[in-house]
């Protein structure tokens, strides 16, 4: 399940395996936690960004999740990447629940622009905006499955392990998400 880059890094430097790094951090080497951040933050950020649609919110969730992971590092059982993914995924779901509870609607225009440069702003094509809105309209479980499959590139088996459900259930979620997105977007993009 580890990303190719993360897996390759650990193969080349076994002394920097996740378990080795965790042991050093727990022994007091706080700076070594940065290795884990560099290794896994990209896929985690993409997940949070896909689920929330907001770069600012995704950053907040990622930061809070990584700090929480540090605080509870001694509790890691099994793979660190799967464990920290669940922290991020739960953070996203909590944010979404809070949005619904406070009756806020995620409308792209309401979000403050968080892009660093004007070029990044321009890069937000109409398709990007429409796909963001379509994803935001999906139930969280379908959105999550679609993002994990298409944006994060995970296999159904990886997804089943991370989300603690079956491959069959996940295939159904991904299929439904695809069909719903096509219904929402095909008039404009077919």
């Amino acid at each position, binding site marked *: 399940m580890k990303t190719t880059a993360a897996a390759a890094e650990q193969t080349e430097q076994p002394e920097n395996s996740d378990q080795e790094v965790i042991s050093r951090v727990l022994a007091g080497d706080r700076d070594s936690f940065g290795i884990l951040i560099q290794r896994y933050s990209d896929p985690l950020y993409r997940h949070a960004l896909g689920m929330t649609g907001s770069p600012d919110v995704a950053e907040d969730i990622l930061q809070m999740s990584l700090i929480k992971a540090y605080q509870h590092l001694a509790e890691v059982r099994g793979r660190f990447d799967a464990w920290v993914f669940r922290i991020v995924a739960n953070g996203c779901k909590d944010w979404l629940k809070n949005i619904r509870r406070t009756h806020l609607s995620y409308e792209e225009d309401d979000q403050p622009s968080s892009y660093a440069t004007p070029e990044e702003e321009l890069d937000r094509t109409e398709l990007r905006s429409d796909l963001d809105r*379509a994803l935001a309209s999906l139930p969280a479980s379908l959105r999550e499955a679609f993002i994990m499959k298409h944006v994060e590139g995970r296999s159904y088996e990886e997804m089943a392990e991370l989300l603690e459900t079956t491959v069959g259930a996940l295939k159904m979620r991904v299929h439904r998400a695809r069909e719903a997105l096509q219904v929402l977007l095909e008039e404009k993009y077919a």
Partner: protein
Amino acid sequence: MRSDFSKSGPEFSSGEFPTLGSGLRLSPEVHAWLDGRLPAHAARKGDAAHDVEFWNRIESDIAKRRQVRTPVHVQRAVMAALPGASRVTVRPWHLRTVTVARGVLALGGAALVALGLALGIALG
């Protein structure tokens, strides 16, 4: 198999979602192609050719999303926010360094002198 939809198409906003079960159904071949298990030409059968073209178009944006990197300041912010050292060493009291201010030292000295004088008078 595709169900019929009104030409105007559904509007979408946060929280709204087309009723499941009444929507479009993509063919198993299209799903298999999107899963990476079939080549595109095998998925293009009949109406499915339209679906393949649609998803080819969407893929152009999804591919960009796969390249998104974490903003560079995030790691710095996380490391700065981490709690302090995880282990604290407590030194035994008799090995701790004690710092005494000069004024306190002077007063203590004067007190000892006064005590000595008092004892001398009492014993004398």
